[in-house]
């Protein structure tokens, strides 16, 4: 019912969408988070994700199960990258299938919102003049 992975290789939104497909699912919503070329008007060169692996995976699994239990999702895939990413590369893919589209939209938005709050993964952004751990300081 759920497929959660923390990967050091390129993510595939097609694989996530294929996992959640079923004949009972009328609506599939896929969120793809990519590395932007800038953040607050500063040019981003690349970024690096580091994760507390076992807990990152267990927290993503909790999110996926809540998408099923609380939102009525049928299947959920969450794939997150670790390691170094270039601009344009995919950092996260979340695919949610549900009988109807509203549940799929709500569950997918819930999943990415919660992932950004609870999953122990840290992003360091590299600029031309330095680097910063994202969100560390107010």
């Amino acid at each position, binding site marked *: 019912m759920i497929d959660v992975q923390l990967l050091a290789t390129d993510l595939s939104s097609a694989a996530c969408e294929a996992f959640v497909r079923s004949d009972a699912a009328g609506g599939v919503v896929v969120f793809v*988070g990519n590395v932007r070329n800038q953040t607050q008007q500063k040019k981003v060169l690349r970024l690096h*994700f*580091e*994760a*507390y692996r*076992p*807990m*990152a995976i*267990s927290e993503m699994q909790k999110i996926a199960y809540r998408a099923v239990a609380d939102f009525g999702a049928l299947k959920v895939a969450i794939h*997150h990258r670790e390691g170094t990413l270039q601009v344009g590369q995919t*950092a*996260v893919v979340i695919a949610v299938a549900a009988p109807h589209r509203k549940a799929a939209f709500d569950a997918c938005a819930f999943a*990415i919102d919660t*992932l*950004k*709050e*609870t*999953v*122990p*993964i*840290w*992003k*360091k952004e590299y600029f031309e003049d330095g680097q910063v*751990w*994202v*969100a*560390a*300081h*107010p």
Partner: protein
Amino acid sequence: MRIKVIAFGISRDILGDFNNQIDLNEPATVADLKQLLLQRFPDFCKLTSLRFALNGEYADDADALAERDEIVLIPPVSGG
């Protein structure tokens, strides 16, 4: 009681070359550990938040610590 803390992201930078071993009087809670860390490493006070994980789960301030626990510092996360 000697506790070993594991640090990720900016919390590893803040601990620097510290050996991550901390001595606490027993019984000790997450709140005691947090207080000690904030005193010894004031840069933690500048973070948006600092949480702790105990054996792979988010811990509450009142949770008791034991020597063999896996204690991980969780500065503000930024996945996704």
